[in-house]
């Protein structure tokens, strides 16, 4: 098994660490590769799009030729996790801001997103979040977080906040507005790995 983490920009090492610990916890092994250039995504069995700045990430995913590889990977039904900026990049449609900055989206999830839906950094927050696949609240860290404001029929809502969807899945794609890689709680990474093993 090979799990890729897009490493163009953002909190990459935190996702790698979380994956290592989650794999250890379940007593399974997989190789983890960080990806900055094209040619590696096609070999991966699962992929993580980390948090970072979505404008920067989107632009460089196209420039480096990785965007099309991710779309191909999706067509093969392989698991993909997008957190925060990753949730934005997965979406089909963005808000006014996305249009204004010519944001590049991968468009593989039937969602419409609102960037910085909860405000600027001073409005960033942590809270106990109820996720449908967990039996107790999850400490979710929202940093200049986006929200999903529209979903297609194939999208399952996993958590909502303030009228916006903050966790959703569509087939093997999992999109989160918060950062499970910033806490010690591995339950969300485990849920993602369940799609692989």
């Amino acid at each position, binding site marked *: 098994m090979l799990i890729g983490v897009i490493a163009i*920009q953002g909190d990459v090492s935190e996702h790698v660490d979380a994956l290592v610990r989650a794999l250890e916890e379940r007593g399974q092994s997989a190789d983890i590769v960080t990806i900055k250039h094209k040619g590696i995504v096609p070999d991966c069995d699962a992929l993580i799009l980390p948090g*970072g700045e979505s404008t920067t990430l989107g632009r460089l995913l196209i420039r480096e030729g990785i965007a099309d590889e991710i779309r191909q990977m999706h067509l093969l039904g392989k698991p993909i996790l997008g957190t925060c900026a990753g949730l934005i990049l997965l979406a089909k449609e963005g808000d006014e801001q996305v249009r204004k900055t010519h944001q590049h989206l991968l468009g593989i999830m039937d969602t419409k997103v609102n960037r910085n839906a909860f405000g600027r*950094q*001073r409005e960033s927050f942590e*809270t*106990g979040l109820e996720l449908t696949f967990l039996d107790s609240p999850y400490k979710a860290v929202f*940093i200049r977080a986006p929200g999903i404001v529209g979903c297609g029929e194939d999208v399952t809502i996993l958590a909502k906040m303030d009228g916006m969807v903050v966790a959703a899945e569509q087939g093997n794609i999992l999109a989160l507005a918060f950062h499970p890689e910033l806490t010690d709680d591995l339950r969300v990474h485990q849920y993602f790995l369940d799609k692989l093993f």
Partner: protein
Amino acid sequence: MELEKLRHGTELIKRGFAKMQKGGVIMDVTTPEQARIAEEAGAVAVMALQAVPADIRKAGGVARMADPQIIADIIDTVTIPVMAKARIGHFVEAEILQALGVDMVDESEVLTPADHKYHIEKTDFTVPFVCGARNLGEALRRMNEGAAMIRTKGEAGTGDVSEAVKHMKQIQGEIRALKGMTREEMTRIAREIEAPVELVVETAQMQRLPVVNFAAGGVATPADAALMMRLGADGVFVGSGIFKAEIPEKMAVAIVEAVNNYDNPEVLAKISKGIGAGMKGISVDTIPQDQVLQTRGW
């Protein structure tokens, strides 16, 4: 939304924001137009200030926080995070920047210090802070005051990367030297570098600074940016280097791509071609001692 259950401005959130900037380039801008150019080029954030360090150096006088109107205009113009500089110790400038909605405050030696004894108590703020450091002690003291991000001081406004290199190597070397030390030995080091022992121990265990560490001060070319990444920087601040270059648009894109390809000389060669001349710059050893910026801040 049940607001009482939301926690704002925690250390996790502040440090988390800094982590989202990793592998990116943060560019100094003085106008909304420059901010737009920076965003287009792929900057992860912009740093709003009245004048870039090279011009501050030329102009002399007292350098202060930028005009709040210009900062507000920059915030309205771009969607990437907007940072802004406050004077060392000037907690009211920092409060104003927080009220304006900036995403991070840089308590910066590039501006004229407001306090020659104390830095801002940063734990009192919701907004995260970045502070400059030349060595491990300085970095850990700033973290102890609540800084969520550290950057090398370098020597701003010179286009001479040598001081940033010196500071990065100094910090990395001091961290490596902690490896294998007993707590007793680390307590001794903590006293010597005037930093809390718990932070020294944490740094020794992690074998890196516990917060994100960017390079800054003198970065002027794609090669400079890649050099700082090779030395272990988590990302790069570029001040005068972009808007004092011959073709700022090209220099900005090239530096962003250089940070992403810092370990690939073939690609760096391609990126560095045809982008026009870099800022003119001045060699650090020709600067009179009283005009050196990095010594501000202790």
